[in-house]
């Protein structure tokens, strides 16, 4: 590898790393009560539940920022995997209806369990979301056998998404009043109300999945060249496809279970990161996408909390504002490529 490329990669990773740190700090400083950095450092040193600042920090802001960091990374990585899988730059968990499928499954399980006054655990939610994600991805796969074009696949995915959302609305309407408030907030997508228990579970699941994906980086690189060449290089395509489906569903499921569906991060971040790195090699893209997703979600959540404070925006509102233009840009560039 030549020197220029190495400098560029180092600079890109340094930028992403610094971005995560700075935005994480901003996220715990800024809010309805501003906390200064020295105060934060003092409070982080020892946790005192009697102090208001300490409670705000430990019970609200830290878990929330941690969730944005972990789930944002997971979401971007899920998008990258799906784009690689379908050889389609505008694929992602949200546009392919995978998030909506997971959302439907979670809504059903929540209503069913709450109706019987059973406490819903994080594990239940993840499991339900995973089942929903795999099911809707299965539908998309069936579609993709018939529809070859890039936009056709996405339209199919969006339709699956709409169907799942409609059914979700329907079951929410028939749910008990007390559940609706909960469900409604969650189904719009938000990082609020995270507990340390949530954060622990999501860290474990996401970390294991990311590690699993990282171990696949070599066959993923071969897969990017196209099926025929990957097969010639000795890649077991069936096995690899299965692994990608499981990993991307798991990551998407995690996000939906804890934060509800979050749009556009999955498409926009991998594309921005790819442009930043100047390469699509999985071994670099996987960690970079994760960091990029964290930066993007920390930034968007900060805006969601503070822009119209004390009212909170749903996270998808903010991610769409910054993410959707990126998608348009990708599509425009694709067409330009074809014409040139």
């Amino acid at each position, binding site marked *: 590898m*030549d020197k220029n490329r190495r400098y560029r990669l180092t600079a890109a990773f340094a930028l992403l790393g610094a971005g995560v740190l700075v935005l994480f700090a901003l996220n715990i400083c800024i809010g309805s009560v501003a906390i200064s950095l020295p105060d934060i450092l003092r409070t982080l040193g020892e946790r005192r539940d009697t102090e208001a600042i300490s409670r705000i920090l430990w019970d609200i802001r830290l878990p929330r920022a941690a969730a944005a960091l972990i789930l944002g990374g997971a979401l971007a990585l899920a998008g990258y995997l799906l784009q690689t899988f379908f*050889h389609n730059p505008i694929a992602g968990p949200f546009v392919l209806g995978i998030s909506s499928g997971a959302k439907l499954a979670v809504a059903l399980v929540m209503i069913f369990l709450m109706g019987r006054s059973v406490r819903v655990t994080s594990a239940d939610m993840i499991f339900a979301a995973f089942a929903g994600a795999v099911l809707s991805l299965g539908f998309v796969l069936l579609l993709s056998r018939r529809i070859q074009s890039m936009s056709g696949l996405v339209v199919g995915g969006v339709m699956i998404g709409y169907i799942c959302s409609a059914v979700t609305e329907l079951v929410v309407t028939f749910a008990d009043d007390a559940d609706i408030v909960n469900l409604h907030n969650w189904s719009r997508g938000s990082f609020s109300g995270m507990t340390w228990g949530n954060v622990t579970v999501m860290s474990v699941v996401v970390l294991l999945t990311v590690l699993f994906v990282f*171990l696949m*980086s*070599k066959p993923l*690189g*071969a897969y*990017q*060249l*196209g099926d*025929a*060449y990957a*097969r*010639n*290089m*000795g*890649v*077991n395509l069936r096995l690899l496809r299965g692994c990608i489906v499981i990993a991307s569903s798991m990551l998407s499921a995690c996000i939906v279970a804890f934060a509800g569906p979050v749009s556009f991060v999955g498409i926009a971040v991998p594309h921005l990161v*790819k442009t930043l790195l*100047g*390469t*699509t090699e999985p*071994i670099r893209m996987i960690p970079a996408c994760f960091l990029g997703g964290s930066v993007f979600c920390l930034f968007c959540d900060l805006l969601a909390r503070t822009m119209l404070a004390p009212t909170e925006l749903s996270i998808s509102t903010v991610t769409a504002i910054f993410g959707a233009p990126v998608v348009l840009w990708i599509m425009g560039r694709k067409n330009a*490529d074809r014409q040139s």
Partner: protein
Amino acid sequence: MEQYYFMTKKMCVGYGNRPLIKDVEIALAKGEILSLIGPNGAGKSTMLKSIAGQLRLLGGTVYLGQASLSEMKGNELARKMSVVFTQKVRAELKSCRDVVATGRYPYTGWFGVLSGEDARIVDEVMALTRITDIGGQDFNKISDGQKQRVMLARAICQEPEIIILDEPTSYLDIRYKLEFLSILDEMRKKKGLTVIMSLHELELARIISDKILCLKGAYVERCGTPAEIFETDFIERLYGMEEADFLKDERFLAYVRQIGSG
């Protein structure tokens, strides 16, 4: 039996469950070049894809050395056989050198990082195929002819014992066509590389091949050495031109006859 490196026994190829070409018997010694010729749609690509293990065989067996191809593990086969197909690799944000380096895949470790030795082989092959000067350029921005040379370099980088090429010279100008074939010729002399390829340039197939397989419709029309294959009116029959009006034109007839008999 031992003297042959590549063999097919009663090979039957086609898509889905519909056999297209049946009972193909090929036997090649190490270092031999086999060319497939025949009209468009005769199944040359289908046959090459089947030989390369990209399409499931509908019957029969392909042998590489002593082993049946279908029983080889992916990585083992990848070190023995490499391919150049008409479809180009997807290579987003990859330089030509990156594309060539993907040929080292079967030899690298778990994360696919190139060793110094791998890098040396990549550079060597790029020099051999004369693409060192375009090594840094974006693969998606070079010409089709240049892409074909990069794809050949990629395949050679894989250090195969046998190489399968589907119309590898179609976009090349006369100079690079000859150079391309001379590289294959050199590889087979030096390293005993066995070559199976489809060619549309009959006069080139004639001078470079040890054996020629003629495909027409659903069967192997003929298989033999160039001297056996090329007869006065064979080309006209193979490509179904006996009745063609344009061969009434003397200039065209002379051209076809010259390829046939030379």
